């Protein structure tokens, strides 16, 4: 029997009285790509932090090639051959690719002067194996996220890592970039480097991993061979119950609520026209960078359009600021909750109040009783858990923060909800709740636009789907025509030669 590359032996971790890991044990063989699955709060991040030396286990051991990793701290973990690729890449944007690859242990002449030439030579050598197009002397901030990730992997190779742990590496990658990453991971595996791959996305796990360990509530539910299981049973292992796959119900009417004609922005959006009906859920699909977020921001007043008109209930609106858009009944639930959604130090209630000051303070003083009542009603509607409107919003999970933002717009009596990646960073259970909420909004006669990169999500939610490509509308799909294949074929940019004769050619006009 071969010695496993990585072994967790009854790893336990407590913070004070709270036990967040309860005796987790599993192995990863040399060259194995091993998935690590679980809802938010299941203990995956804690386990990764123990692996990367940030935390020390309260009890139990971590072994690399049969040798316990005793030394504590990230440097010791790296020395033991463990490379960690974080979701938020830990790089210094202004430094070059090579400088980042040697961050913390620069090559020097006589221990004094950094040897940039040698660093760049070695960096180039490591990069050649996986992506020769990356220039080691370029500032890393100029690279795309996918490329920056590749730099991290190259750094792991440079350090002769035996094990690479990746925490949700694809959260901001396009499908093509994911394909490239998959190739690199297979390549690592062929070199005998083991990979621990954390992701929420089932199809990725099934495609990349040979085995997976599933965690729930700090415990290992089980390790499964991917060939001998299916998505449904993995999900039920994660959440401890079977999620009912609801079918789509449409509440759309013929009444036009919002109409945009020939919208363009300086940034990405080019000549987009759309109509949104009362009770309708309009999906917007497309690759990352196709201008979907930018389109939403134009409608939300967060960015300024350079051309085009928008009217609501037939009346033209300027939408010069979010404030104006809110007054017209529009509310944006942004993709990056931390950056654009929440005021972290304020309570959930204050976060809700922000958008409705004219309602709660008509005479210049906030009516805290009304605010309390309305926020309680809207939070019950969205199902905040735990129900503590006074608590700082940063203390809630991503899913509950999202519910608070939706409550904000409910309190503001918003009629047009704009969702940008509504379930990004939200676990499977809360995801279903958000879907139900969006459906309920439609049922109540509100109108919804949903931008999402997850095709099953768009298909599940939308009455109609607009596909964007390079800033323009590439297609409009409705009813049975909404399929993953159809969306994907319209979303992917075509080179002029292939586009000419294929059925996937642009539909527009």
């Amino acid at each position, binding site marked *: 029997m071969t010695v496993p590359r990585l072994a967790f032996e009854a790893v336990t971790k407590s913070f004070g009285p709270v036990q967040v890991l309860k005796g987790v044990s599993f192995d990863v063989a040399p060259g194995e790509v091993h998935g690590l699955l679980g809802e938010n709060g299941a203990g995956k991040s804690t386990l990764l932090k123990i692996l990367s030396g940030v935390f020390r286990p309260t009890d139990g051991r971590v072994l690399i090639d049969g040798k316990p990793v005793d030394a504590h701290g990230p440097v010791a973990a790296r020395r033991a051959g463990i490379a960690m690729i974080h979701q938020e890449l830990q790089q210094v944007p202004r430094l070059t690719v090579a400088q980042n690859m040697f961050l913390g242990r620069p090559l020097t002449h006589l221990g004094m002067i950094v040897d940039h030439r040698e660093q760049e030579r070695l960096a180039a050598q490591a990069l050649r194996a996986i992506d020769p197009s990356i220039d080691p002397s370029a500032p890393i901030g100029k690279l795309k996220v996918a490329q920056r990730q590749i730099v991290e992997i190259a750094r792991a190779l440079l350090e002769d890592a035996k094990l690479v742990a990746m925490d949700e590496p694809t959260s901001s990658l396009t499908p093509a970039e994911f394909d490239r990453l998959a190739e690199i991971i297979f390549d690592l595996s062929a070199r005998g480097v083991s990979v621990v791959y954390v992701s929420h996305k089932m199809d990725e796990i099934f495609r990349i991993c040979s085995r997976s360990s599933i965690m729930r509530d700090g415990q290992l539910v089980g390790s499964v061979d991917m060939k001998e299981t299916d998505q449904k049973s993995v999900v039920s292992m994660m959440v401890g119950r079977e999620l009912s796959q609801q079918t789509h119900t449409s509440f759309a009417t013929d009444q036009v609520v919002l109409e945009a004609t020939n919208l363009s922005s300086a940034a990405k959006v080019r000549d987009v026209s759309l109509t949104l009906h009362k009770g309708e859920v309009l999906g917007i699909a497309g690759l990352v960078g196709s201008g979907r977020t930018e389109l939403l921001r134009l409608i*939300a007043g*967060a960015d300024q359009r350079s051309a085009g008109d928008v009217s609501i209930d037939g009346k033209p609106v300027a939408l010069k*600021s*979010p*404030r104006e*858009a*809110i007054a017209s009944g529009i509310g*944006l639930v*942004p993709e990056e909750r931390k*950056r*654009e*959604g*929440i*005021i*972290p*130090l*304020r309570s959930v209630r*204050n*976060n809700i*109040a*922000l*958008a409705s*000051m004219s309602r*709660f*303070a008509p005479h*210049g*003083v*906030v009516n*805290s009783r009304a605010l309390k009542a309305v926020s309680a009603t809207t939070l019950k509607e969205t199902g905040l858990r735990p129900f503590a409107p006074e608590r700082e919003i940063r203390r809630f999970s991503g899913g509950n923060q999202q519910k608070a933002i939706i409550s*904000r717009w409910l309190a*503001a009596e918003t009629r047009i909800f704009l969702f940008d990646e509504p379930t990004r960073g939200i676990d499977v259970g809360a995801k279903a709740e958000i879907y139900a909420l969006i459906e309920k909004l439609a049922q109540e006669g509100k109108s919804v636009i949903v931008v999402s990169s997850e095709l099953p999500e768009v298909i599940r939610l939308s009455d109609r789907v607009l596909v964007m490509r390079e800033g323009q509308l590439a297609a409009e799909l409705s009813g049975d025509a909404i399929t993953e294949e159809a969306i994907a074929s319209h979303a992917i940019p075509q080179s002029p030669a292939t586009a000419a004769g294929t059925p996937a050619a642009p539909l527009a006009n």
Partner: protein
Amino acid sequence: MSQANAKPDAGFFETVFSRFSVRDAGTLIGLVVIMAVFAILVPGFLSERNLLNILQQSSINACLALGMTLVIISGGIDLSVGPTAALSAVLTATLLVLGVPAPVAIAAGLALGAACGLFNGFMVAIVGLQPFIVTLGTLSTFRALALIYTGGNPVLGIPDSFRAIFNGSLFGIPTPVVIVAVVALIAWGVLKKTPFGEYLLAVGGNEEAAHIAGVPIARTKIAAYVISGTLAALAAMILIGRLGAAEPILGNLWELDAIAAAAIGGASLMGGKGSVVGTILGAIILGAMRNGLTLMNVQSFYQLLATGLIILAAMLIDRATRGRE
């Protein structure tokens, strides 16, 4: 619920206590400890007369620190409060000497302070420059204007009628203390009870999110600087009332004391966090400490040392207790 309706008083007290945060309680404990230490070391420290003295000596810094707190909450900083005060002092004093009635002269001084704040706010919120740099620039500019206008000489001969306003007392409490108490009460209400307060905390807490949520970013920031400038001018009125003259160099290093009071009181220089109650307590802590050390005949070098140590201690305690509320 029905109880609260039946007895509105209970609701009121409930509100007051729920508003008094853990952090403010910490600042209060700090003040009590310092007072206790001096009470033991200095006979007569706790006499009514000396306590009023402390409040009076703290009033100018408290006045500035209130404005500073609002600016810091908005995510900014106002280094120009001292020179703003000097400009206002020089203008008001000049008008008074020319025989302009006191209310008009005061209004003109306050308006000039507001104008200085408006300039800072415009540069920060509309032009988009960094608050530290903008107010560093106006720190020198405003000071230079005051010096150039007066030729570096103090404006003397402020009439007694004006001085009487700021040197009097109300029910035995010095007027400056009453003025600053009223300002503090208004500032507390503004921060806790008005949309502007809500917006201020949101803008400083997360500007991008506040924008998406419909907060008027520029207006909110500008208002904070205008208030800071106006309160600097008010502090200047108190000072020239006491001194009877307006020096163009008055208010030197005021900004640092004001920032210190705000920080001791729990304001975060990252923005989005700060407390009116805390700032007032912070100003009194600094005032009490200086008063006590002076009564003990401690050299001013050591007073400076004590100020520095208090600030560092407050920040360390802040760090150690953060996130445990």
